[in-house]
């Protein structure tokens, strides 16, 4: 193993070269033997779909990179490959260092169990050593502001409470690389500030962070570099500000962005864009 050549620059935490992920979309997945046997006789009705294609990027150790793009652009597929839960179809992927993932808040939480119970299971899923968890448990609950509610089943939690608990568990991992998926836009403003502060603290401690989000604000304020994914391909990459600007400019020009701008400007409520002279 030691003699194996690891591709890429060793000072990078993550190296990705021409990475691709293909799903074979079967229009009707055979789930019974009869269907499977019939499927052997007929040509397979599968359609290749590249969720991520030819993506090349790298994140230096201690860097913070944002991945932005619209829904279905391949952001989450890319993050799952980085997290190691999904195997790429082609290309090179090198992750140097211990890894923790914050993929959707409270992934693995069970609604019928208490907050305390779920924290312990999540900690085990994330590979946090038991001794460290025991020592840090009260701090974690304090950070999530859930001291009063930690012993009630989480099905009674609000979305914000769940989000706070999920975030608090994930950041208690002492990993060198942290992958974060669509989680910064949750909680109230005060909690968001607290999360950002905590992320900055972790970054200054030399940790590498990859944030996947369509929240342009989070990417702009936390990341130094960004990659803009569009239908599985890299549309732009570079300094976070520039990439986010280009992304925002493009989103406003097409799709849902246009609608919201019209609505925002519709002050007189007639359903039509306001005449500039009315304002």
């Amino acid at each position, binding site marked *: 193993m030691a003699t194996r050549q690891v591709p890429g620059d060793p000072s990078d935490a993550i190296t990705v070269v021409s990475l691709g992920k293909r799903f074979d979309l079967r229009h009707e997945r055979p789930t019974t033997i009869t269907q499977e046997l019939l499927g052997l006789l007929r040509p397979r009705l599968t359609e290749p779909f590249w969720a991520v294609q030819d993506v090349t990027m790298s994140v230096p150790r201690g860097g913070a990179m944002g991945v932005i793009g619209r829904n279905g652009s391949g952001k989450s597929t890319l993050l799952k490959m980085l997290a190691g839960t999904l195997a790429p179809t082609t290309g090179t992927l090198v992750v140097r260092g211990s890894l923790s993932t914050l*993929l959707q808040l409270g992934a693995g939480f069970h609604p019928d169990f208490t907050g305390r119970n779920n924290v312990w299971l999540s900690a085990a899923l994330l590979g946090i050593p038991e001794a460290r968890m025991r020592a840090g448990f009260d701090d974690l609950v304090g950070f999530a502001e859930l001291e009063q509610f930690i012993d009630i089943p989480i099905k009674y939690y609000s979305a914000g409470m769940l989000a706070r608990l999920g975030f608090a568990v994930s950041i208690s991992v002492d990993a060198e690389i942290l992958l974060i998926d669509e989680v910064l836009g949750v909680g109230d403003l005060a909690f968001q500030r607290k999360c950002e502060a905590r992320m900055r603290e972790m970054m200054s401690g030399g940790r590498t962070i990859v944030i996947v989000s369509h929240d342009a604000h989070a990417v702009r304020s936390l990341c130094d570099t960004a990659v803009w994914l569009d239908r599985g391909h890299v549309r732009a990459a570079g300094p976070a500000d520039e990439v986010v600007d280009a992304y925002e400019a493009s989103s406003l020009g097409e799709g849902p962005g246009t609608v919201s701008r019209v609505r925002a400007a519709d002050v007189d409520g007639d359903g039509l864009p306001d005449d500039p002279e009315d304002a």
Partner: protein
Amino acid sequence: MTVPPPTVVFTHRKSAWEHRHLLFALAGRDIRARYRQSFLGVYWAVLNPLLQTLVFWLVFSRFLRMSAGTVPFVVLYFSGVIFWNFFTTAITGAMGSVATQMYLLEKHRFPAVILPLASVLARGMDLTVSAGIFGLLLAWYAMPVPVTALVIVPLLVIGLAATIGISLLTAALNTLYRDVAQLVGLAFTLGFFLTPVVYDTEAVPAGYRTWLLLNPVATVIHGVRIALFRGELPSLADTWPGALASVVLLAIGWIAFRQLQSTFTEVL
């Protein structure tokens, strides 16, 4: 279109051993989940075999006055059914463990094999409780426990290997075909009669016995009864076929699971 195969390097991938407390955490959750929102909670684990024993005692020892030699029938039955119950409930739990907890595999990086293993481990609690009640039953009938009872340890290893093997195989196949559950249900119904639970292996003609003892659960029950009730050790000839079958089952389950696990998270 052919594409070059991927090169993937994770410098800090955790081993299954480093995930061991996940195994215990999942097993603990499995146990708690079974008794959640029930007033008696974990006491069901004791109450269940206790009430079963009471009914069997009533039917077999009082109504039918059955006995197997010097051994009261309820003791004979209990010495078999605790292993049969462990075997079937462990496999039933493990069978769905991957399919129902796919969301964990998609979000977290840990060896998938932990899911069925945790299900089997969780049933170890029921086995322990049942064994305790069986101990009380032996005390009630003033039956001494001979030193040969220690042979239960290697016998349990044989039974556990078969249980884990079938658990891995069914858990992996169940992600692809849901009819695995139907098949296993049928196999358990028939298997109950092909395992010496309600009868003693001594009652089976020698020609059939060799075949019967290819069943690892039969091997365990046969061995335990000889050790407990006769104070002897089960013969090697009676033990090796089941032991071999266990090893084969474990190998098949392990290989099948390894082969199929890369497809678990690919199902869209």
